[in-house]
């Protein structure tokens, strides 16, 4: 009889402890915040090719390399991507004549097919193209840049090192 009472007590206490642990677990709050963010990645550095004496270009057919920018967004409709091709050299030898700049930003790859309309929906303002990032995911942009020296008279660029900057912006909407 004593044994039965003891076993009953043990089982009762075990049940109480299980019950109380359940109550404690129910009181633990789990909180979290989902926050949108944008990451600007430089996937491929650009390089100017020099197909002739008066042209510098990132076009691969002219021995250049297109810079590739990757933009990751984790929430739809939270950011605009603004990609600008260069309109001046950040450093160069002394230039006595004018440089004509052209270029283009292009969507080259997207992580989902929902983003396929980004290029056609984008807008151009000067050297800057603006894309509304309406889908969460990743977009790759390439930037073509062509600099021509001599104000249309095809003068050769002075020898030296030339540097230019592509600007990739991610602006919260």
């Amino acid at each position, binding site marked *: 009889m004593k044994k039965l009472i003891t076993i009953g007590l043990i089982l009762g206490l075990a049940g109480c402890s299980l019950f109380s642990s359940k109550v404690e677990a129910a009181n633990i709050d789990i909180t979290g915040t989902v*926050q*949108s*963010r*944008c*990451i*600007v*990645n*430089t*996937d491929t*550095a*650009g*390089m*100017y090719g020099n197909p002739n004496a008066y042209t510098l270009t*990132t076009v691969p057919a002219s021995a250049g*390399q297109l*810079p590739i*920018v*990757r933009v*990751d967004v*984790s*929430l739809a409709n*939270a*950011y605009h991507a603004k990609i600008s091709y*260069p309109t001046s050299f*950040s450093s160069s030898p002394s230039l006595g004549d004018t440089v004509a700049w052209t270029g283009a930003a292009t969507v080259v790859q997207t*992580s*989902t097919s929902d983003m396929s309309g980004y290029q056609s929906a984008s807008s151009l303002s000067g050297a800057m193209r603006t894309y509304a990032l309406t889908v*969460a*995911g*990743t977009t790759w942009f390439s930037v073509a*840049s062509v600099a021509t020296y001599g104000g249309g008279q095809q003068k050769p660029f002075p020898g030296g*090192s*030339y*540097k*230019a*900057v*592509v*600007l*990739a*912006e*991610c*602006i*919260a*909407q």
Partner: protein
Amino acid sequence: MYRSIILSILLCSNAIAHEMTPTYPTWESSYMEGIKKTTMAMFNRRPDVEYYEIGVFDDKWKPVPFVTSYKIINLKYLSHVKFDVYMSAKHSAKAEYICSTSKLRGDNVMIASKICSRFK
């Protein structure tokens, strides 16, 4: 589902990247009367960049005066930083964007990255 997996892999990958959060910061009271404060965080995964410039702008992209410890932050590769931006209550009402821009030292065609969060 696949989209989330791909995005997670990309966000965790060892890319060359610049990141700033939160996307939508808010002003809070500081320990000084009439001065507002917000806290931003940055992460540098660009080995070619060591410095980032902070700027605050109104809705027409005109600069708005603000105070931080350093307007150009030294942020080593794979480092995080949290920084406070202080502004008078009067100016904080005008502030629309807070931006970080990479400062470059490199060769040939470089890519400058700029991320702007927005006060709503």
